[in-house]
C-alpha cells in the first residue's frame, strides 16, 4: 500500500516538475499562431494610428494601465481589469484617478517600468512633452486631464479638470498602451518596445509581422504561444482560400463579410466562426453649410427616406443593427431602446409612410415629380463605402433626389471633406470604445477635428458635459439616450446601420474572444493557445 502511495506521490511530483505536461482541456504552451493581415499598416505605433490594422498585430507588444477582460465579449465597466496598475482609486471628489503600479515589470529591452513611463506617455498624448508624436489622433480623449503626477516609482495620478468616470474606459482601450520614456516616438514606429506578452521581432512592409514570446513577461505562465506571425495578404479571396487550405490558424479579426462567411463555412466546415457587431457605423455626412442641404427640411427628408433594413438585408443578409450614434443593445451598452428609436422621424417601421412625409418636406422645399434635386454622393473608393452609397442613391430616388456617385481616392477623401467640397458623403465611423464620451466629443463636439460636418449645438454640448460627469450609470444612460435622439432629429450625421462581421479560426485555436462592442480592444492574445 505504501509503495502505491509513494508511486502516486512521485507521479504527482513529476507532473508538477514538467511544465509542458497538460491535462485534457488545459492550455498548452508552445506553437506559433499564424494569421493573415488584411493590409500593411503604416507603422507599428498604436498611438499614431487610427485603424485596427495597427492594434491587431501590435496590441500584444504592450500593456495598458487597465484593460477590458479579454475573455468577456462585451466591454463594460464591469469588465475592467488592472494590468500595469494593480489597483485604482477615485479621490478628490472624483477629480483624481490614482493608480498603484505593479512592481518588477520590465520593458522588452530590460529597463524597469516606472510611473515616469506612464507620465511620459500621457504627457505626449496631451501634447505637453518635448517629444511629439508625428500624429496624435486621440489627443481629444484627454481634454479633461489637467496633468499627470507621480508619487515615487509605483504611483501615478491623473488630475482632472472635472469628474470624468469614463476616463477608465478610454484607458482600457487597445488604443491606450503605455510607452517607454526612453524610446523615441520615431523608434516606436519602426521597432516598438513594450512590456507586453510578445516581443516585436520584425515588420516587413507588405509582407509580414513577427512577434515572439516574451519569456520575462510579468504574468507568470503567459503567454502560451511561442509567437504570432502575421502574413500580409491584401487580396481577400487569396487570404480566405489560404485559411481554408490550412495555411493560417485564424482569419484577420472581423474581416469576413456575411456573404463570404457562408462560402468559407461551406469550404471549411470545421472552422469556428463568430459574427459580432464591429461598432463601426455607416452614416451620411451632409454639407449643411451650402445649398441645398443648408435647408433643414431637405436634410430631414433625406434622413426620413432611408430604409435601413433594406441596407442590412442587401449587405449583411439581415445581420446588422439599426441604431443611433451609440451601438444598439444588447451588444451596445448605451444604445437607445427600440421604442425610443422608433419614435425618431425616419426610424419608424413603416418606410412608405416615412417617405410620404419626406416627399411633403421636399415639395415644401420646391422639389417634386417634375423637379428633381440633383446631388453628388461622395465616398471613398473602398467596397464598404461604395456599396452602401449605391443603395443610398437608389433610395433617394423615392423622394425626388437624383444622386450621382462620386468615388474619391483615400488620399483625397479627407482633404475633400475638410474643404467642404461635397454635398452628401457616405462615411464610416469606428468607435474605439463603446462609451459616449469617445463618440460624442469626437464626432459631434463644436470644433472637434473629426466633426466633419461642423455640427455645433451649444445646448447639446452642455448635455455632453452633463453625461460625462454623471457617476450614476442609470442616470447617465438616460442622458445619453436623450442626446442621441436629439442628434438624430437634428440630422447631425444620420446613422444608416451598424455593421457586423465574421471572424473564423481553426478548431485547435483556443482562448479567442471576439469583442462584441468594439473592434479595437481584444488582441492581447496572452491567453490564446493551440490544442495540437
Amino acid at each position: 500500500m505504501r509503495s502505491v502511495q509513494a508511486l502516486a506521490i512521485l507521479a504527482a511530483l513529476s507532473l508538477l516538475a514538467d511544465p509542458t505536461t497538460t491535462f485534457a482541456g488545459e492550455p498548452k504552451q508552445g506553437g506559433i499562431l499564424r494569421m493573415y493581415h488584411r493590409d500593411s499598416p503604416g507603422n507599428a505605433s498604436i498611438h499614431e494610428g487610427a485603424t485596427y490594422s495597427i492594434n491587431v498585430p501590435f496590441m500584444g507588444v504592450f500593456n495598458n494601465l487597465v484593460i477590458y477582460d479579454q475573455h468577456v465579449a462585451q466591454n463594460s465597466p464591469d469588465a475592467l481589469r488592472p494590468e500595469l496598475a494593480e489597483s485604482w482609486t477615485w479621490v478628490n471628489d472624483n477629480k483624481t484617478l490614482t493608480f498603484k503600479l505593479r512592481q518588477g515589470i520590465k520593458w522588452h529591452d530590460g529597463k524597469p517600468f516606472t510611473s515616469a513611463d506612464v507620465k511620459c506617455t500621457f504627457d505626449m498624448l496631451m501634447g505637453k512633452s518635448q517629444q511629439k508624436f508625428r500624429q496624435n489622433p486621440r489627443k481629444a480623449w484627454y481634454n479633461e486631464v489637467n496633468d499627470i503626477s507621480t508619487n515615487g516609482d509605483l504611483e501615478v495620478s491623473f488630475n482632472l479638470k472635472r469628474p470624468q468616470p469614463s476616463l477608465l474606459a478610454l484607458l482600457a482601450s487597445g488604443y491606450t498602451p503605455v510607452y517607454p520614456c526612453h524610446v523615441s516616438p520615431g523608434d516606436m514606429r519602426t521597432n516598438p518596445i513594450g512590456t507586453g506578452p510578445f516581443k516585436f521581432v520584425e515588420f516587413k512592409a507588405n509582407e509580414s509581422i513577427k512577434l515572439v514570446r516574451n519569456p520575462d513577461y510579468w504574468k507568470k505562465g503567459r503567454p502560451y504561444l511561442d509567437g504570432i506571425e502575421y502574413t500580409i495578404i491584401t487580396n481577400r479571396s487569396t487570404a480566405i482560400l489560404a485559411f481554408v487550405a490550412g495555411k493560417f490558424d485564424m482569419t484577420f479579426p472581423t474581416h469576413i463579410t456575411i456573404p463570404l462567411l457562408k462560402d468559407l463555412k461551406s469550404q471549411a466546415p470545421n472552422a469556428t466562426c463568430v459574427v459580432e457587431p464591429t461598432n463601426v457605423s455607416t452614416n451620411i455626412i451632409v454639407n449643411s453649410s451650402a445649398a441645398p442641404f443648408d435647408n433643414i427640411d431637405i436634410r430631414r427628408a433625406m434622413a426620413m427616406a432611408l430604409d435601413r433594413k433594406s441596407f442590412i438585408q442587401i449587405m449583411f443578409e439581415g445581420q446588422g443593427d439599426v441604431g443611433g450614434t451609440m451601438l444598439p443593445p444588447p451588444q451596445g451598452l448605451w444604445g437607445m431602446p427600440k421604442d425610443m428609436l422608433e419614435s425618431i422621424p425616419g426610424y419608424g417601421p413603416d418606410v412608405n409612410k416615412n417617405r410620404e412625409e419626406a416627399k411633403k418636406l421636399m415639395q415644401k422645399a420646391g422639389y417634386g415629380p417634375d423637379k428633381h434635386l440633383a446631388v453628388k454622393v461622395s465616398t471613398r473608393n473602398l467596397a464598404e463605402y461604395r456599396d452602401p452609397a449605391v443603395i443610398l442613391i437608389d433610395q433617394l430616388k423615392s423622394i425626388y433626389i437624383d444622386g450621382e456617385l462620386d468615388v474619391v481616392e483615400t488620399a483625397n477623401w479627407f482633404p475633400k471633406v475638410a474643404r467642404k467640397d461635397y454635398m452628401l458623403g457616405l462615411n464610416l465611423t469606428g468607435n474605439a470604445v463603446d462609451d459616449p464620451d469617445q463618440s460624442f466629443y469626437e464626432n459631434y463636439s463644436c470644433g472637434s477635428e473629426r466633426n466633419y460636418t461642423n455640427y455645433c449645438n451649444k445646448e447639446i454640448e452642455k448635455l455632453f458635459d452633463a453625461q460625462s460627469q454623471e457617476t450614476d450609470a442609470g442616470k447617465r444612460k438616460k442622458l445619453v439616450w436623450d442626446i442621441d435622439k436629439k442628434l438624430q432629429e437634428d440630422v447631425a450625421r444620420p446613422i444608416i446601420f451598424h455593421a457586423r462581421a465574421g471572424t473564423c479560426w481553426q478548431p485547435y485555436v483556443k482562448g479567442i474572444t471576439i469583442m462584441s462592442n468594439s473592434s479595437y480592444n481584444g488582441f492581447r492574445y496572452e491567453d490564446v493557445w493551440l490544442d495540437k
Partner: protein
Amino acid sequence: MFAYLVRRLFLMLVTLFGISIVIFFLLRVVPGNIVDILFAAAGYVDPADKANLEKELGIDQPLMVQYWHWISGFLRGDFGYSYVSEKPALQEILPRIPITARLAGLALLFSASIGIPLGVISAVKQGTRLDYVLRVISLSGLSLPSFWLGLLILTASVAMFGQMPIFNPNPQTWLEAFATYAVPAAVVGFRSSALTMRITRSSMLEVLRQDYIRTARAKGASDASVNYNHALKNAILPVITVIGIEAAFLIGGLIVTETVFNIPGVARFLVEAIRWRDYPIVQNLVMFIAVVVVFANFTVDMLYAVFDPRIRFTD
C-alpha cells in the same frame, strides 16, 4: 561598332533623364501626398502637425529643389528613406528584386519555351486541326486576364488538393523554391507565350514561302533542318523583339499575379508605394525598372547581330 555603342549609351542616358523627369512630376500631379494619406487614415487633420510632417519629409520645398535632392542622391547612390517604413529605400527595394526577377525570368522562359515551339508547329501544320487547336489556345491566352486565371488556379487547387501554391518565403529545397514560382510564372507567362506563339507562327509562315526555303528542300534538306536551321533562324528576329517588349510589359502582369499569389516582389510593392505616395520608393523603383527596360532593349538590339549575321552595327 564602338561609335554605335557610344551613341546608343548616350541615347540611353538621355532617355533615363527624361524618364526621371516624367516620373518625378507625374507623381506630384497625382492629388494627395503621404501626409494627406496619413491624416486621412487617422480621420483628422491638425494643420500644425501636417506642416511639421511635410517639413520633416521635405515635401514642403519647391519641386525643383525636391527633384535636385532626389536625382543628385540617386546618382550618388543615396536613395533616401521610405516615407512609410522610415527605412532606407534601398533596403526596402533590394530584397524584393530577386523575387520578381526570378518570377519574371521563369515567366519569360515559360513564354519562350512554350510559345516558340508551338508557333513553329502551328506554322508548319498550317490549316490542320492541330493548327486550329493551337490558335484557340493562344487566343485564350490573350483573352484570359491573369488575375482571373490566378484565382481560378488557387480555387481549384484548394478544392481538389486542399492546398494552394501560395508564396513560401523559406523554401527548404530547390524543388520547393521552384514550386513557389512555377505556378505564378506560368500564369504570367501564359499570356506572353500566346503572343510569342502568334508572332512566331506568322513570321515562320512568311519565311517558309521564301525561295531559299524551296531551294533547301530541293537540295534534299530534311523537314527538321528546313524548319529549324533555315526558317526559324530567319523568322526569329521579330520574336526576339516581341519577347524584349514583353519583358517590359511583364511588370503589369506581375503586379496582379504578385497580389493574387501574395508574392512580396517589387511589382506589388510598387503599387502599394504609389497608394501611399511613398515618393522615394516609387521614384527609385520606377527608375530601376526603366534602367532594366532600357538595357533589355539594348540587349535585344545586340542580339539581332548574333542571330542574323547580315546585321552589323556600323556608323
